[in-house]
């Protein structure tokens, strides 16, 4: 282990380290703490410039209710759910199939196709923007929920396939080989042998894609117009315009938008981190 394990140093060092940790954490999360404190202040505090002192009154319930009653936040949140969940299902399902094909079979274009998915995952969104927007307008998918999740699902399939293929490639190949000798059909090998083994990868991808798509802002702007189909990220920006200088409400809305991915992360931390390292760092 590096640096030197703290338990091997003297009690003084250990105590100092223990004491410094919370301090470092507060410093690191200072912007977040500040915005949380703002979100529970009353409007009077904000106007009188009491931004850092002790709140004159706690308005946590008033502020958070105001966000929902004075804006379309509930609708935006629901839209985000409707966009995110189908994206996760479609992209992970497609990636299981494609990852299996690219990892298990040896055929000449397997590696080029794999690299196509990897490269597609890294390209800038802007190179897709005009054609995808135009296609969505032409097919009536512009400003709809489906228009967004179809695009996200297709795009995230690249990342999911990258991850899934590497994961399946690391499984013992003998399993597949012996099933083949037994005469098991290919799709049955996929369904009964491989799929149960990739469950951790499915979990990792599900939380990761959920977070990525929930936090998307660019496509929400490109593919939507009105309140009907806007997800919460674009919604928060709209609220920012609506609640000018009502910083307590803007902060409350921002924190609300952040809650689902945060919950997701804390519930499935191990999977989340495994996904982020792209499976390359175990």
């Amino acid at each position, binding site marked *: 282990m590096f640096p030197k394990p703290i338990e091997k140093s003297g009690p003084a060092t250990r105590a100092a380290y223990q004491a410094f940790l919370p301090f470092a954490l507060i410093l690191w999360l200072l912007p977040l703490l500040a*915005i949380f404190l703002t979100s529970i202040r009353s409007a009077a505090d904000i106007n009188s410039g009491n931004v850092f002192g002790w709140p004159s009154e706690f308005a946590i319930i008033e502020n958070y209710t105001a966000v929902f009653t004075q804006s379309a936040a509930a609708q935006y949140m629901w839209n985000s759910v409707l966009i995110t969940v189908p994206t996760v299902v479609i992209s992970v399902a497609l990636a299981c199939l494609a990852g299996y094909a690219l990892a298990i079979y040896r055929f000449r274009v397997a590696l080029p196709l794999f690299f196509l998915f990897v490269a597609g995952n890294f390209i800038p969104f802007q190179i897709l923007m005009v054609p995808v927007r135009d296609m969505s307008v032409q097919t009536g998918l512009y400003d709809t929920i489906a228009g967004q999740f179809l*695009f996200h699902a297709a795009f995230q399939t690249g990342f999911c396939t990258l991850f899934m293929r590497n994961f399946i490639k690391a499984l013992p190949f003998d399993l597949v080989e012996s099933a083949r000798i037994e005469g098991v059909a290919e799709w049955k090998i996929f369904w009964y042998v491989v799929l149960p083994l990739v469950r951790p990868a499915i979990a990792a991808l599900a939380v990761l894609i959920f977070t990525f798509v929930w936090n998307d802002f660019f496509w929400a702007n490109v593919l939507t117009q009105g309140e009907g189909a806007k997800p919460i990220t674009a919604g928060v920006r709209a609220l920012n315009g609506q609640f000018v200088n009502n910083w307590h409400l803007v902060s409350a809305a921002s924190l609300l938008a952040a809650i689902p991915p945060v919950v997701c992360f804390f519930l499935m931390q191990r999977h989340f981190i495994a996904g982020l390292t792209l499976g390359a760092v175990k």
Partner: protein
Amino acid sequence: MSHAVVPDTDVPKRPSWVRRNKLAIAPWIFLIPALIFFAIYVVIPIFESLWLSLYEWNGLYNVDGESTAVWVGFDNYVKLWDDPNFWTSLRNNIAWLVLYMLAVPLGLFIALFLNQTVTGMRFYKSMFFFPFVISQVVVGLIFGWFYNPDFGVVGTVWKAIFCEETTNILGNVTFTCSRPAPDILSSPEWATYGIIAAGLWPQIAYCMILYLTGLNNVASDQIEAARLDGAKGWKMLWYVVVPQLKPATFIAVVVTVIGALRSFDMIAIMTQGGPFGSTNVLSHYMYEVAISEYGERYGYGSSVATVLFGIMLFFISYFLWRMYQDERGGR
């Protein structure tokens, strides 16, 4: 040639073509749904954009459903060359790329700091990772407020240091400041750096988690051996630990480069490219010209996107080449 190939009627029927070639056909059946989907939304649009960058088009169709695009050849690129906003954006992209790289060493140092086993360490590690999980839109809003010279953190700290509070006869509080508080996001020189600093916050968290995972795998016997040889501190870090963290470093660099070039959300939230286009980057400038209030310029926008794509392609090729080397080394 022998005549033995003539089928013998006694031999059981040969398996069907599908059955004989099942190992050649099966992968395609598994691949087709993903491939079709990916082609429609990702691969084909790339080529359409490249092609569209040679046209001038406002995104409209005439009554017959034909596009009104007009072929202009390389005109868009010529215009781009003379467009000062394009050069500002490109320069900012380079600033993003260079400064964003700080996330890699800073992430490593936080990871080293947290790589201890004391009670509650798991909690601290996940809390340090927190900024990455929240949306960049929220990070942008938080920092936009943080930098606010009137009632943000910067403004408040400034007042505490440089301002004197006076109460006039009517009881109103006024501040007299020896220097006015800096309005970072309204300053053409500093706004970009303000946004990059905000962007570093989640990115450092990302690199940190990559390194924390990597540090788990550092071979402790090598560290002990080096320690016996008298290596410590920086030397230990540089010659023993960092080489073992190579896979983590590679991923950290990849995601940081991609993150820097993709930066859009924060700029859109914090400054919308302003003041006077000074914080634009190619990704935001492309959006601005393609979908603006002055009418859509799809062709010109596509040419900006093509330039960004070219820059990205340079990095993508390098990453793929590295991955290819690993693949050949593997199974």
